[in-house]
């Protein structure tokens, strides 16, 4: 991957410092004197606006909880790559050696356009069931609908920051790993017992990706990967007005602004940091009027968008399956930050506690982890599965990935301790991020 000079990014692990030292260091770094000349926010201004937002009253409580308790829903500690957490068993897993259910409908729940439909259909044919794939737009919608029993699938895609909620709320059932041998044999060792689910009690990993910047090299004249602070391209993109985009997600949009400022703890619950990120995003509106959507996989190849915050799989997926006629995809580029300086993530699949076909659900998890199935799915979605058999070198050698998109493939050591994931927050922290994002969307 990139070999940026790490000396440029000193000052990691800010979360270990006390709050006072943290703020002092941020001031030294330039809280009041930002790099790219946009409007700075002094600490006094930030506190004043916080007071008006009504957060100051809750400040002491939030900070003490952030320091000493750090408990998520159900009083389970917040999992981080350095602090793995084993989730409690909320029920007994099914017995081993049962025969798979046949006949009827097997229900899956996933993001829209995030799995190859052929893969799903083949599973149904193999086990003699009709498959039904329902989709959701974002995790909030998925959790809300499942929690209120509006939709009752057998298996669901889930991102690990929502895992604790789902487990404590008895939405998911524990897995019996006897049915999922592929987990131990085919998956990266670092993800066989991930930090958010030690022992893989509830989930198996689906795909891995990083959130970074996608762009068209024939439209953007800057060499973003070689910049000191690549995230700052957004705040300098005035001349690309109308062709810039950011992701429509509270965590990903606000953390873009945090990373731009060199603040790497994207799981922060510090209201000052969130408020400053909001102010930076508001500036962004005036600078380049970004589109706020999730359609970069479609708009980057067609040229409707030139610069977009994107997940690595979007770019590769755009190259592999969504190129418009006559475009060879050679001008697509992707950059993501080195380990610890930018978000990486992996999705998971889990089984619902109300699943009507639990054995089949286990077999689905095993099926997804099968190397050939995972590879075929990869060719459609562009998101890399954490398969031991799919190394970056082999994919490049087999010319599946073009040279300009080699940055969208990762190795196992990009994950694990030292990496930054979008991880679970406390309920209050979650609400803070959502409120800030809602204010951004309201243009206030």
């Amino acid at each position: 991957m990139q070999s940026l000079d790490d000396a440029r990014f000193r000052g990691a692990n800010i979360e270990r410092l006390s709050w006072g030292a943290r703020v002092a260091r941020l001031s030294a770094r330039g809280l009041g004197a930002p790099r790219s000349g946009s409007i700075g926010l002094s600490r006094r201004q930030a506190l004043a606006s916080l007071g008006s937002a009504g957060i100051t009253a809750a400040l002491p409580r939030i900070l003490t909880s952030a320091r000493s308790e750090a408990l998520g829903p159900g009083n389970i500690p917040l999992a981080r790559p350095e602090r793995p957490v084993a989730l409690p068993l909320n029920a007994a897993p099914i017995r081993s050696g049962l025969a798979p259910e046949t006949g009827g409908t097997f229900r899956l729940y996933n993001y829209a356009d995030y799995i190859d439909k052929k893969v799903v259909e083949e599973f149904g044919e193999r086990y003699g069931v009709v498959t039904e794939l329902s989709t959701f737009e974002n995790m909030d919608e998925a959790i809300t609908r499942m929690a209120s029993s509006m939709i009752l699938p057998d298996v669901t895609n889930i991102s690990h920051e929502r895992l604790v909620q789902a487990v404590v709320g008895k939405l998911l059932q524990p897995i019996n790993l006897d049915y999922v041998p592929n987990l131990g044999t085919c998956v990266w060792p670092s993800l066989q017992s991930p930090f958010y689910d030690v022992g893989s009690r509830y989930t198996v990993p689906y795909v891995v990706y990083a959130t970074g910047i996608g762009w068209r090299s024939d439209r953007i004249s800057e060499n973003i990967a070689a910049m000191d602070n690549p995230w700052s391209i957004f705040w300098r993109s005035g001349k690309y007005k109308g062709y810039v985009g950011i992701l429509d997600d509270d965590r990903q949009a606000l953390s873009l602004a945090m990373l731009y400022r060199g603040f790497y703890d994207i799981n922060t619950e510090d209201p000052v940091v969130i408020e400053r990120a909001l102010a930076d995003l508001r500036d962004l509106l005036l600078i380049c009027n970004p589109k706020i959507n999730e359609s970069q996989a479609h708009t980057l190849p067609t040229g409707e968008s030139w610069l977009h915050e994107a997940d690595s799989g979007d770019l590769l997926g755009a190259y592999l399956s969504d190129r418009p006629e006559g475009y060879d995809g050679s001008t697509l580029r992707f950059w993501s930050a080195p380990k610890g300086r930018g978000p990486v993530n992996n999705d998971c699949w889990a089984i619902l506690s109300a699943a009507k076909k639990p054995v089949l659900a286990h077999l689905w998890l095993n099926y997804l982890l099968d190397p050939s199935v995972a590879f075929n799915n990869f060719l459609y979605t562009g998101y890399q599965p954490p398969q031991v058999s799919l190394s970056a070198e082999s994919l490049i050698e087999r010319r599946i990935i073009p040279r300009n998109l080699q940055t969208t493939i990762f190795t196992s050591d990009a994950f694990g301790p030292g990496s930054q994931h979008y991880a679970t927050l406390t309920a209050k922290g979650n609400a803070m991020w959502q409120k800030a994002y809602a204010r951004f969307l309201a243009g206030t």
Partner: protein
Amino acid sequence: MYPKWLWPALAAAGILWLVLLFLVPFYAIIGVAFGGVDPIFQNPVPAWSPWHWDFASAIDTLKGFLPQHEYWRVFLRTAEYVAAALTASLLIGYPVAYYVSRHARRTKALLVALLVLPFWVSYLMRMLAWVNLFAPSGLVNEVLAVTRLTTQPPDWLNGNPVSVILALVYGYVPYLIVPLLAALDRIDQSLLEAARDLGASPWQAFVHVTLPLSKTGILGASVIIALPMFGDYYTPNVVSGSPLTSMLGNQIDIFFHGGPQPSVGASLTLILTLFLAGLTAYYMVAVARAHREGER
């Protein structure tokens, strides 16, 4: 001839439907706005009986409307857009309604049909047509380029408040014209003739007779379009996808579709409803007062 119980019996089914599927849903908004929140999933837990109502979250949301707080700017922006769109609609709609009701004779039926036609074209279709016209390569920019009115074709569809206001006008002005037309139709021609007989010029007759008599019509038509405009969220979304033109309806939409804080969304909806009910009450009082004055 008909038994007295027949009429309530006939109406019962419809009333039951409206109660179950219109009144009760309103109560659900109140129950969610004044209810609690599930600690695990952060889903709202509605409070159905008034004893369990908790006003804290609703009052918090209401405080957000105070100046300099989070909803104030959105509310102000919405009020600005509605005021601008209403004014523009009146400036366009009143002359049209006036001409059709007062002067068109042979073409009146045709004009009325043409005026009513946009009602029945779906609002979304008209917005789609609008977006196509104002697209970067659309008709408007072509005309501007040909007539050389601007050097650089303006970007109409990206966070441009003018586009949003114009789209609101385009979308809502048919709903203004028809009631205005009905109101102007009701003005007695003989009053105008009397004014002319007394020596007023056409312009003076208009200002001193027609305009005051059409005041309630104008007020009614304005209320008819201002109310839905306050809750509009799809027009800014279609015509300008940017947060810079976000309206109050967008906020409500965000809180329901973007994250598990429906209780805030419910409080916002409640506040919007009360505000609009206040406007309607003002309108009804004004009409009642005008009627009383008319009778005197």
